[in-house]
């Protein structure tokens, strides 16, 4: 992840937060936006403005058509997409929504204003209820957009059919939109809203697609106009110069060359550093199996649960975990137990009434309100281990104390899990990493959340991205404290946050004593290359430089200054 450029806006250049390092050039394909219709626009039938009963008839039919189209799409979809579409279809079919709108139209209100009035009322009620329901506002708005478009005779909003490889641009992509994309024709995903650790960005990262989020003004670009998208710098350049196109092509060439090195990760002097991949599904595990990743450092199990309206059964979970383990025989697979809550609300696990969900019952804390969820997952993991003969490493997220680590370790070991660990993403766990490590076999630093909690900064607030920079000295101090405890206890300390995918920061992490790095698979070649060109003593020196710097920018500059010059040139840092 790179940080938004705070400099002045250059003509033809838009800035946001990049996910990954790749750059591509291609034509823009705008996801059909919300129909731009004035609230008091007349409803035309055969060129004649209609009101009253005639308008009611058109709108009633629009609701029916939208509900039918969504139900139809749902019947053709599978898994979570099917459930999401079915729920959205039922919203479109809602009688209170429809009768509320028709009553307003009957009273003489313009069609769009009537629809907006009723939708806004329900949206406000959902937001008021908070948590899971607040997330459903996106679905409600998409029903509104489809009905307005249908009634006013406009093209249906959503993802367009792609005829050539394109840069897909949207205000924001709902998970269902992302799932509907024809990936063979997607070069990159750029959104105006969203966050670098949100759903779209994570999925894009796993698919190896460059992704930019929080790019102000990008939805104003014309369809078909050629843009250069650079995830490494977080920049979208409109009608890029031949020089820029060449530079991106050269970088792609370098990346391809770096991919040729598939030997295990190690420093120049041969100190092994396991280079692992982050995954969310068994299908991801199969993709990873074809890469040089030495295994999986973070299997985010909540992706299996996301959008599910009920807890998956132990059998369903066992099948999913076993499929992932089977895809990677003999390779390390670190499974993280359910990390629900905050920006990842689950229908059946998230408390609907939390004022401050990032500080609430999330991650392993669910054991306090819903211990069965944790027990079922551990049972399924143990069953997958028995079925495949592959022993996963299992870790719990959001651990704040050594007591919590001990509690989790006891539960996991009772189920027969051999390697038990916890995430270090709460500052208290980093400060007391020695005590935490006494209870478990390993820890893994989640630097995204560690930065969020250390800097008291919401991960989803793009305008605060500089505070979330993993180069922030306070964040590096906590990483250093954790790595130090690992060295003292002789236990592995991994990093599975976005910071591991920055080849420059990766050197610092290794210098601090981190023993494994897990990232989106696309980031592995550059990190492997950077490590190969520095000795462990050089990494330690770089770490000292970084810790001594007074700011995030100064820390990175100091390290870049002392990099091997060839690495600096090759990676363009």
């Amino acid at each position: 992840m790179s940080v938004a450029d705070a400099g002045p806006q250059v003509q033809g250049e838009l800035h946001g937060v990049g996910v990954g390092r790749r750059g591509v050039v291609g034509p823009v394909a705008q996801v059909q936006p919300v129909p731009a219709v004035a609230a008091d626009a007349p409803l035309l039938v055969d060129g004649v403005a209609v009101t009253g009963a005639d308008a009611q008839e058109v709108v009633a039919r629009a609701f029916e058509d939208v509900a039918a189209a969504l139900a139809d799409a749902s019947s053709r979809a599978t898994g979570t997409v099917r459930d999401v579409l079915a729920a959205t279809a039922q919203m479109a079919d809602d009688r209170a929504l429809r009768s509320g709108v028709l009553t307003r139209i009957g009273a003489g209100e313009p069609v769009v204003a009537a629809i907006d009035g009723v939708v806004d009322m329900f949206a406000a009620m959902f937001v008021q209820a908070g948590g899971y329901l607040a997330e459903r506002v996106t679905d409600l708005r998409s029903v509104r957009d489809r009905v307005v478009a249908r009634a006013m005779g406009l093209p249906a909003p959503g993802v367009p059919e792609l005829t050539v490889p394109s840069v897909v641009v949207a205000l924001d992509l709902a998970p269902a939109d992302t799932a509907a994309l024809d990936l063979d024709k997607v070069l990159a995903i750029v959104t105006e809203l969203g966050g670098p650790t949100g759903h779209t960005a994570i999925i894009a990262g796993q698919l190896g697609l460059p992704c930019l989020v929080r790019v102000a003004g990008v939805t104003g670009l014309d369809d078909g106009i050629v843009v250069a998208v650079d995830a490494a710098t977080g920049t979208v350049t409109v009608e890029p110069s031949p020089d820029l196109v060449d530079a991106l092509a050269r970088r792609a060439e370098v990346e391809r060359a770096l991919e040729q090195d598939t030997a295990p990760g190690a420093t120049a002097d041969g100190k092994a550093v396991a280079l692992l991949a982050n995954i969310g599904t068994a299908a991801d595990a199969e993709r990873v199996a074809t890469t040089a990743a030495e295994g999986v450092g973070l299997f985010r199990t909540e992706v299996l649960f996301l959008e599910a309206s009920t807890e998956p059964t132990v059998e369903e979970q066992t099948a999913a975990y076993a499929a992932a383990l089977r895809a990677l025989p003999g390779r390390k697979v670190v499974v993280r137990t359910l990390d629900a809550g905050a920006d990842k609300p689950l229908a059946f696990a998230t408390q609907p009434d939390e004022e401050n969900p990032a500080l609430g019952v999330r991650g392993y804390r669910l054991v306090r309100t819903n211990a069965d969820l944790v027990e079922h997952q551990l049972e399924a993991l143990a069953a997958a281990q028995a079925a495949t003969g592959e022993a996963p490493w299992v870790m719990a997220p959001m651990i704040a104390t050594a007591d919590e680590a001990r509690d989790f370790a006891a539960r996991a070991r009772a189920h027969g899990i051999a390697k038990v660990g916890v995430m270090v993403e709460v500052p208290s766990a980093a400060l007391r990493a020695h005590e935490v490590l006494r209870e478990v076999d390993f820890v893994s630093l989640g630097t995204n959340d560690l930065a969020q909690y250390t800097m008291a900064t919401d991960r989803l607030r793009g305008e605060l991205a500089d505070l979330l920079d993993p180069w922030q000295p306070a964040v590096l101090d906590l990483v250093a404290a954790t790595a130090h405890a690992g060295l003292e206890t002789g236990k592995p300390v991994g990093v599975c946050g976005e910071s591991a995918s920055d080849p420059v920061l990766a050197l610092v992490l290794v210098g601090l004593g981190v023993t494994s790095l897990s990232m989106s698979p696309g980031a592995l070649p550059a990190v492997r290359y950077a490590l190969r060109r520095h000795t462990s003593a050089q990494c330690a020196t770089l770490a000292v430089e970084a810790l001594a710097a007074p700011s995030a920018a100064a820390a990175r500059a100091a390290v870049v200054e002392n990099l091997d010059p060839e690495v600096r040139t090759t990676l363009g840092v």
Partner: protein
Amino acid sequence: MSERTVAVASRVGLHARPAMIFTQAVAASGVPVTIARSGGEPVDAGSILFVMSLGVPSGEEVTLAADGPDADRVLDELVELLATDLDAETP
């Protein structure tokens, strides 16, 4: 006017799938039914949007009300539905 009060049995409360199943049953009955949380305003029980926005957690009581000749039969059926863990049933 007939009324029934029942505690919501579904583990997730009256959200998501349980809310879908419940509102579909109300709509299928053809009888106008209202639902209210304790001390709250009654809303249309056949509307997924209204029912979801009540945000009824598991174990909390709701009051159903309906009028007409079929009211008692329909309410009894709906009470039975809410007293079941709709979440536990396979889709």
